[in-house]
């Protein structure tokens, strides 16, 4: 237990005290609490404090009473007071109901808020329903999302079904403000971007259409609110000041509103697309080779998406005439076709929405189980209180008064649960939106990496519904026991022997409730089991690398660097004390793939063909440092330099795709950049085959990969940097030490590169599986809660049934039944209950687990082992829950039982 619990309880205690004397009374309570905690321990002190809270709360109600007019009000207050006292007398009962309802309702409210934001609420942009991402149709449902700028410009000039269109791209920009170097999350945008997303400037203006026309002419920038405050101190006279990018001053022309943070949700700087020729490289904006911008367009009013779709082939053809594609790599069959994707769908991974719907179903189940459990507990309690009610009837209470009393109790419980549920919902929502557990790590979803623009918050209406649900549950599950209590009537009840036929009938209702609980729990447990197994499979998946002891860092290269620069860089890194080995690469395993293109395979008698492959540029030590195993041939060496014959290493997927069933060693290829830029005369020879390595995602098969030696420069156009700008180091030292040492050495060597994206390879491996870890943890927690609730339910019913059957058991024992026989009878009825629930649950899970779909990895939705293991677990838990009441039954003394 922690100190905060003490403080919380003391604070609650304060709330129960009258205003005018709160200070000294609270002081007295705290003084006594400390004395008790010191002399008798915190547990005793805390129990005392809880009782004190209940007593003071009771007093507060009493002192309020005279102030309230009218008998009805007085009755309600009296009922409430009585209810408080009743519930304080059985705190475990009350706490179980409040806690389970609060968790059930709270989790539902939070998850529903997320699902509502992701699926139903319009995006916070004007006419969001008419916003579409324009992509190029290919195999993936989202299509190829990146465009060269000139192609977008051609589209924007067309009079298509669009009213407005904009292009934008995310960029990590190195910016100097007042001599301070900052890496800023930026967006490169067309001037129309601000209109499409309905984002006017808070200060100054946004980019003008004129600034979209001439490359490198208008060096202007727009600041985000955060950058404005941090770098310019929120100075309102910021307009006309400047930030420095690559040695050139960019004049600040505007500041955005705080709530607009671009499409990443973190953007703090906007730069005009025409300046990309300066801050990126020449031709970035004007060349047709750089596929880097995303396009969003708003349909004209009244144009349906079907009508727009119908215009796409013609529009594609017109745009293709104006701006032909030089690299047809991304499109299917080399044919282009524009495709419209609802903007919402590119902003959030459909898999993420889907997993939230699954979680919503799961918390719905937990709420149902919690309701069943509550109904069960309330019914059981009403029955055990029969004699109390009978006594009150005998003393003149009307049936209505008793119904009112019982209802007041359940309403009180529900109200407390409703308030607690609100706290649960707020807390859970806060966690979900800050921890962002469900962010997919997929390639295209870098823009979907945040809930920000979905404005997930606790909707007051949802909160009100939440509270209403709580009260509804209170009434609904309060009425049955209330009626039972009032009908309890004057007869047999007073005699304490409640084993009437009515008792058995109620047992059946309760048994049905428990059956439902067990069945729902089974479904949750099986889902959770499948997810845990998925996580285990994903965590132990073969990544093709040895991540332990490897630290990776990216450097920022604003300019093209020479081979000598990288040689020096590698030398510096190797020289750091504690670094055992180091290598440079354009792309690191487990960090996303880089450039891809078609690879021409040399004709060997068969038909000429080309294979799509990713390309990585690595220094010879790369395979050694990352632990990628050689399968055949040789690895790269320092002799594979500029003057030597051009060589490449392929992965097994590439070998399989290009030379199925043949030895790839000695085969020759040409890669795309050479074809595109005319330096295609030279062939590159494959000298080695290495294992497949996961770069991008665990879910898709590893793609063909071509490793080219860093010391043999590519014939790439100026700026398209496939530069080995990422560093992998094998070391036993901690990350911070290494990065500090690296930074120091680079500064000393006069090459102060910005370092970012620092992570151990193990962390990168963990990110690959985080999706499964979070969903299995979430489902696991829900399923565990369901299991505990079901166990409580089973225990409650069995304990009640044993109490009801005391006489019967007594007679059996008197007639010679041994304890073992009694145990068998009681456990037998428990087993029947369990078996029915387990069978129902298995059937439900079998029918329903298909929806888990891609939330699973490496297991089928009907994995027999998981189904069997969970069934066994459930039966064991049910039997354990039956065992305690069964033991009690075994010890029934026939003499006592029969005399009662």
């Amino acid at each position: 237990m922690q100190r905060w619990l003490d403080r919380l309880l003391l604070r609650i205690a304060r709330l129960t005290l009258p205003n005018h004397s709160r200070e000294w009374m609270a002081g007295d309570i705290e003084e006594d609490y400390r004395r008790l905690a010191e002399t008798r321990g915190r547990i005793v002190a805390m129990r005392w404090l809880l009782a004190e809270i209940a007593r003071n709360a009771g007093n507060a109600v009493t002192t309020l009473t005279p102030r309230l007019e009218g008998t009805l009000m007085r009755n309600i207050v009296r009922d409430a007071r009585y209810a408080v006292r009743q519930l304080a007398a059985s705190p475990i009962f009350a706490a179980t109901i409040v806690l389970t309802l609060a968790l059930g309702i709270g989790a539902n409210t939070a998850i529903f808020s997320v699902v509502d934001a992701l699926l139903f609420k319009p995006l916070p942009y004007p006419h969001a329903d008419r916003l579409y991402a324009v992509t190029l149709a290919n195999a993936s449902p989202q299509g190829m999302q990146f465009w060269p700028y000139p192609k977008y410009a051609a589209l924007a000039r067309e009079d298509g079904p669009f009213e407005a269109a904009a292009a934008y791209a995310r960029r990590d920009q190195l910016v100097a403000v007042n001599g301070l170097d900052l890496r800023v999350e930026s967006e490169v945008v067309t001037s129309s971007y601000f209109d499409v997303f309905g984002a006017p400037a808070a200060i100054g203006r946004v980019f003008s259409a004129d600034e979209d026309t001439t490359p490198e002419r208008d060096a202007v920038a727009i600041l985000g609110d955060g950058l404005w405050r941090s770098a310019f101190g929120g100075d309102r006279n910021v307009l006309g000041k400047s930030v420095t990018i690559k040695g050139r001053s960019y004049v600040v022309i505007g500041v955005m509103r705080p709530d607009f943070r671009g499409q990443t949700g973190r953007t703090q700087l906007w730069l005009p697309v025409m300046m990309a020729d300066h801050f990126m490289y020449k031709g970035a904006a004007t060349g047709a080779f750089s596929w880097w911008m995303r396009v969003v367009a708003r349909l004209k009013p009244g144009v349906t998406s079907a009508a727009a779709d119908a215009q796409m082939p013609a529009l594609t053809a017109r745009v293709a005439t104006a701006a032909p594609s030089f690299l047809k790599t991304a499109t299917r069959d080399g044919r282009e076709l524009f495709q419209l994707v609802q903007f919402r769908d590119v902003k959030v991974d459909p898999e993420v929405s889907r997993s939230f719907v699954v979680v919503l179903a799961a918390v719905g189940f937990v709420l149902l189980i919690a309701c069943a459990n509550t109904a069960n507990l309330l019914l059981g309690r009403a029955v055990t209180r029969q004699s109390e009610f009978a006594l009150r009837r005998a003393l003149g209470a009307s049936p209505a008064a008793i119904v009112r009393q019982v209802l007041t109790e359940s309403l009180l419980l529900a109200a407390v649960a409703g308030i607690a549920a609100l706290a649960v919902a707020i807390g859970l929502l806060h966690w979900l939106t800050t921890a962002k557990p469900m962010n997919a790590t997929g390639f295209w979803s870098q823009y979907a990496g945040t809930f920000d623009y979905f404005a997930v918050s606790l909707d007051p209406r949802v909160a009100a519904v939440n509270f209403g649900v709580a009260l509804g549950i209170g009434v609904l599950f309060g009425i049955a026991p209330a009626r039972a209590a009032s009908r309890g009537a004057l007869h047999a009840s007073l005699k304490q022997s409640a084993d009437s036929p009515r008792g058995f009938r109620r047992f059946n209702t309760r048994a049905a409730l428990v059956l439902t609980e067990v069945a729902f729990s089974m479904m949750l447990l099986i889902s959770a089991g499948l997810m845990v197994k998925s996580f285990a499979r994903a965590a132990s998946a073969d990544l093709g690398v040895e991540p332990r002891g490897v630290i990776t860092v990216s450097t920022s290269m604003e300019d093209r660097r020479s081979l000598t620069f990288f040689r020096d860089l590698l030398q510096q890194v190797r020289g750091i004390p504690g670094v055992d080995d180091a290598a440079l690469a354009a792309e690191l395993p487990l960090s996303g793939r880089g450039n891809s293109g078609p690879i021409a395979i040399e004709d060997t008698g068969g038909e000429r063909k080309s294979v799509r492959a990713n390309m990585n540029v690595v220094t010879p030590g790369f395979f050694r440092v990352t632990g990628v195993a050689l399968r055949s041939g040789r690895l790269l060496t320092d002799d594979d330099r500029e003057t030597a014959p051009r060589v490449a290493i392929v992965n097994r997927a590439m070998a399989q795709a290009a030379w199925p069933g043949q030895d790839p060693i000695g085969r020759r290829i040409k890669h795309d950049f050479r074809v595109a830029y005319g330096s295609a005369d030279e062939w590159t020879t494959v000298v080695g085959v290495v294992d497949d390595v996961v770069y991008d995602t665990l879910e898709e098969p590893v793609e063909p990969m071509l490793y080219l030696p860093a010391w043999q420069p590519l014939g790439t156009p100026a700026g398209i940097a496939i530069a080995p700008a990422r560093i992998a180091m094998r070391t036993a030292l901690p990350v911070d030490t290494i990065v500090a040492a690296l930074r120091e050495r680079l500064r000393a060597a006069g090459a102060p590169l910005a370092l970012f994206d620092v992570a151990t390879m193990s962390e990168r491996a963990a990110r690959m599986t985080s999706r499964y870890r979070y969903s299995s943890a979430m489902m696991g927690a829900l399923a565990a809660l369901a299991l505990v609730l079901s166990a409580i339910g089973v225990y409650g019913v069995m304990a009640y049934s044993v109490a009801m059957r005391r006489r019967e058991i007594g007679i059996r024992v008197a007639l010679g039944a041994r304890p073992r026989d009694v145990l068998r009878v009681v456990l037998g009825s428990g087993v029947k209950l369990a078996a029915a629930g387990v069978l129902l649950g298995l059937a439900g899970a079998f029918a329903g687990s298909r929806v888990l779909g891609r939330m699973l990895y490496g297991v089928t939705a009907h994995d027999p082992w998981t189904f069997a293991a969970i069934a066994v677990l459930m039966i064991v838990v049910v039997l354990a829950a039956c065992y305690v009441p069964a033991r009690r039954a075994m010890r029934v003394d026939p003499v006592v039982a029969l005399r009662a």
Partner: protein
Amino acid sequence: MDHKTEAGATLGEFEQLVLLALVRLEAEAYGATIRRDIEARTARRLSISGVYTTLERLEHKGMVRSWIGEPTAERGGRRRKHFAMTPVGARALKSAYRDYTEMAAGLERRLKRL
């Protein structure tokens, strides 16, 4: 019956216990000590607000006076409210005690047997 006319009211049973605690505790009488004293001697469980309700009623009747003390660390930096009996309270307690002992006189053995 002079205590009745003077104080304007008889003492309730719990009021008597509280006044007796004030007599015993003297300068050390405040909420926590009063409650502790009664709880220790009578095996009753009291709520602090209940104790104050009675003290405030006695103060209202002029039988008890109170003053605010200094804050102390063991009380989370809160001040104490001290209580002491007034002459009116002393007379009322004395007369209640006299009535009680008079009534119980000679009944000791029989009371024990009950």
